[in-house]
């Protein structure tokens, strides 16, 4: 049995400095959910496929089921809980609601962050760029048409701001 000392993991989550001890093998998604009680980030397939666990780490989307928590130490993380500001939904969230871009909602936190990642870098995405941006997020209810419309809508709203 290796010497499995717990590690102090310090991250800035949604603008707030948080820290907790964790076994090294703790996945980032488990760290967020179990240690920090941020259960908005979902575990879907747990095999690096579905993207339900997508969060932003230092501004880039990652699958938080495929990162050990200590690897994110010192990093800045945005989860779905960090999108709404002062009780008002983020334009991407609003667009998903208005365009029926979700049904059961399980994949939605990951899709929201993948959408935000796209629109932050590419404010006017082509159809192809939208499809490519969400290729790592699987939805098993809606099909992707309404999700696609939601991202288009959010792009238009965010550009006006």
């Amino acid at each position, binding site marked *: 049995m290796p010497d499995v000392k717990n590690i102090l993991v310090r991250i800035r989550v949604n603008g707030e400095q948080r820290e907790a001890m964790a076994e090294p093998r703790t996945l980032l998604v488990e760290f967020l959910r179990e240690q920090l009680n941020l259960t908005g980030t979902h575990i879907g397939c747990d*095999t690096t496929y579905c993207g339900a666990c*997508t969060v932003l780490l230092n501004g880039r989307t*990652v699958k938080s089921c495929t990162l050990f928590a200590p690897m994110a130490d010192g990093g800045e993380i945005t989860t779905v809980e960090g999108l709404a500001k002062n009780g008002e939904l983020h334009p991407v969230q609003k667009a998903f609601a208005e365009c029926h871009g979700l049904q059961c909602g399980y994949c939605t936190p990951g899709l929201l962050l993948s959408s935000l990642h796209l629109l932050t870098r590419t404010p006017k995405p082509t159809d192809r760029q939208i499809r490519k941006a969400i290729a790592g997020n699987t939805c098993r209810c809606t099909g992707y048409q309404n999700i696609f419309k939601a991202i288009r809508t959010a792009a238009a709203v965010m550009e006006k701001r």
Partner: protein
Amino acid sequence: MYAYPFSYHRAASLEEAVKLLQQLGEDARLIAGGQSLIPLMKMRLARPSALIDLNFLKGLDGIQRHNGELRFGAMARHADIENSGVAAAVPILHDCAAGIADVQVRNQGTIGGSLAEADPSGDWGAVLLTLETSVRCFGPKGERTVPLAEFLKDAYTTILRHDEIVHEVIVKVPPKNSGGAYVAFKRSAPVYATVSAAVQLTLDGKDGCKDARVVLGCVGLTAIRARDAEAALRGKPLNDKTIQAAAEAARKVAEPQSDMRGSADYKRALAAALVKRAIGIAARRARGEDLEAGHEYAGR
């Protein structure tokens, strides 16, 4: 899913990483982006007793051009290469970097980690074997630079010794009249390709083929160089007949296994089709055309 327990260490320099590898013994492993290793650990197909994290090591993610060579730091992420103006000079590199798995995996996975992992279905091995590529390795006795074809020994096996690390991947920029293309067929974005084909052609005039490299991925223990396919093109005019001959030769050299991605026969047929397509794109690029290529999957 939980990996087996392991002790966790961070290396602030290559020297420190080597020292940790020596101290922690044969069961210790380096972790770069972790996009291959972590799934293997979660499925308990890999069971390192210790991980040495390279993500805190500064300055190992550069992408630079020097004297006709592109130099990729081992920790350069696929997304960094996808978005690099420097790497764009060699289109086949962009084909690969822009289509590995999905955005999230590309943001985290690294070129050095991918080569060191040497997964038979990995994308970089096939692509980089079409170019003059070498791997600079750092070890206790200093550095050695090894041609990629020597570096990749077998499935999941490289020439790296236990206390050695990939430092840099060095790619010679091909001449002006050269063009390449990588075409990988996969069932959906996040998965490994079913079969992939990488081709780099150097033209003689408009339609003559001066030199060719043809490499297949996912159909053997490592990426396979299809030398007969290259011979079918080298010194010949590029036309339907020679391209067909090259595709046939590639089909013969493939050694696929039947699995959930498809039967062996299907994969052989796919290999031939992808080689044909990659030759077509490579030739057009060599003539100066700007066109897209890369991973193909449903919903793209």
